[in-house]
């Protein structure tokens, strides 16, 4: 079973966001493998352990993304493809068109990806990619089983669960709860440094920058206004609870 996993390197979720000249500042930020992609990588590796095959991780991103690739390789992925080209870093349209071009030359049974990245939080790329490749997809899966040439998955749909089957090749996006990602072992980390990472540019993929130029333009980036700190209610429980209800109705008008 050949499994491709699309990954992205993102800010750590505990990172504070600051701006410099209207742009999000990267200095001093710790980067991680996008948590949702980590579920995808874990699922790919455990499926490989059950059904054999190879796991290839693919990313589009700057040089620093290599650290996220190494994490995935240390967890147990076999090889990686890294599109490192300024012209390939755009919006979700750009990312999906580039990924589709990378994947069109590969053979695969399953594509896994996080259901969204914790930075842009759009959740667009995987669904776009499946359509560009002409394969079905199921989003936000929390359980995956392989049955012959098909997968049966459980999907989180706003709190309810849908059980869905689809023939491979199929693309699945990971939701939290899918699994418990493993920590890379020391041996895994050592092995990862020897695993191959194939670097690609747009030209290698036969794409022109204009083919994949962003269609969403950022006009402004800003931080939300800081909240002024609120009131701590004092006194007996009953009195505090009464005061809270009064405030919620009269001052805040939410009750």
């Amino acid at each position, binding site marked *: 079973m050949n499994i491709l996993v699309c990954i992205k390197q993102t800010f750590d*979720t*505990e990172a*504070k*966001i600051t701006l410099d000249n209207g742009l*999000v500042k990267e200095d001093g930020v710790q980067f991680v493998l996008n*948590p*949702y992609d980590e579920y995808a990588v874990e699922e790919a590796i455990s499926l490989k352990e059950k059904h054999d095959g190879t796991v290839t991780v693919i990313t589009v991103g700057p040089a620093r993304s290599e650290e996220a690739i190494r994490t995935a390789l240390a967890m147990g992925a076999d090889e990686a493809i890294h599109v490192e080209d300024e012209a390939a870093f755009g919006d*979700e*349209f750009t990312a*999906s068109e580039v990924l589709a071009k990378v994947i069109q030359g590969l053979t695969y049974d399953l594509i896994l990806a996080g259901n969204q990245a*914790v930075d*842009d*939080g*759009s*959740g*667009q790329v995987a669904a*776009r*990619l499946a*359509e560009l490749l002409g394969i079905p*997809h*199921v*989003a936000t899966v*929390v359980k995956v089983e392989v049955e012959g040439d098909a997968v049966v998955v459980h999907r989180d*749909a*706003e*709190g*309810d669960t*849908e*059980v*869905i*089957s*689809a*023939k491979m090749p*199929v693309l699945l996006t990971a939701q*939290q*709860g899918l699994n418990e990602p493993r920590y890379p072992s020391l041996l895994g980390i050592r092995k990862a440094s020897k695993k191959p990472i194939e670097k690609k540019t747009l030209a290698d993929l036969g794409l022109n920058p204009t083919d994949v130029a*962003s*269609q*969403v*333009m950022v*006009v*402004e*980036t*800003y*931080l*939300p206004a800081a*909240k002024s*700190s*609120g*009131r*701590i*209610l004092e006194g007996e*429980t*009953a009195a505090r*609870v009464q005061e*809270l*209800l009064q405030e*919620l109705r009269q001052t*805040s008008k*939410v009750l």
Partner: protein
Amino acid sequence: MSRNVLVVADLRGSQFRNVTYEALGAATKMAEGGQVAALVIGFGVTDNAKMLGGYGAEQVYVADGEAYENYVPDHYLAALKAGVEEFQPQVVLLAHSAIGRDLGPMLAAHQKAGQASDVVNIEVVDGDVIYTRPIYAGKAFTKVKITSALAIATVRPNNLAAPENNGAEASVIALNVNLGTARTSVRELVKKAATGVDLTEAKIIVSGGRGVKSADGFKPLADLAGVLGAAVGASRGACDAGYADYSLQIGQTGKVVTPDLYIACGISGAIQHLAGMSNSKVIVAINKDPEAPIFKVADYGIVADLFDVVPALTSATQKFLAE
């Protein structure tokens, strides 16, 4: 510049969710003389369709049939493509819900269109539609412009203003959809949303963290939620500890929510949780630890054991709402 705007209705059963009206309000604002239409996809949804006229839809395209009883991406996409073909919009608005989040990018891929996801504000500036959306789960925001011929946006529930229903009725047009064979099939649907109030659209959320201590510890929170007509949420800590289902998780990993009232019980307030809820209108924090970071974003704080405060709040609320 006038533009035609198609709003894809978001349904729970055969009822429209509020976000449908909110999107129609935004559509009317950005149409600037163009037409506003709605698209309703579902089973047994035709009777309700015309009432969308009251919220600004001049016509409503309907794809009604058993094929749409469950969400099957291929069938829904076929209906959406038929609607787009028929109405020729410049903008398609969907809800940022389980279905809209899935369907928007599929259409975008086929149309080579730009999409703004999880939009919390829409304005027209110098003739351009500007979409505001959170990044890093709301730790920052961007305003974006879409340059493709067709623009797609998914809008977050509870953020755009819904117009008053003026009682107008829209003309209803049944769509002719070439369905084909779906490549995925729904084997089973397990309903488990606890209170029946959806987290992302809830006006009030009662949420628990590690301080809730066990799955049973969520019981008093569910009781309070029941009295308030609220949804129950949880922090990552509570989910990781197995006290609550991951589908209830609120935070940068998990759901981002913006209710009118957010009641955080036994939640310390890690940055990743704050990202998911700090844009709520009013925040109440109940926590034993006066140093808990959650108090920094709370409008009202009660430093006490949640197992004393929450039951007291439940019975007081019951009386208060009955008055």
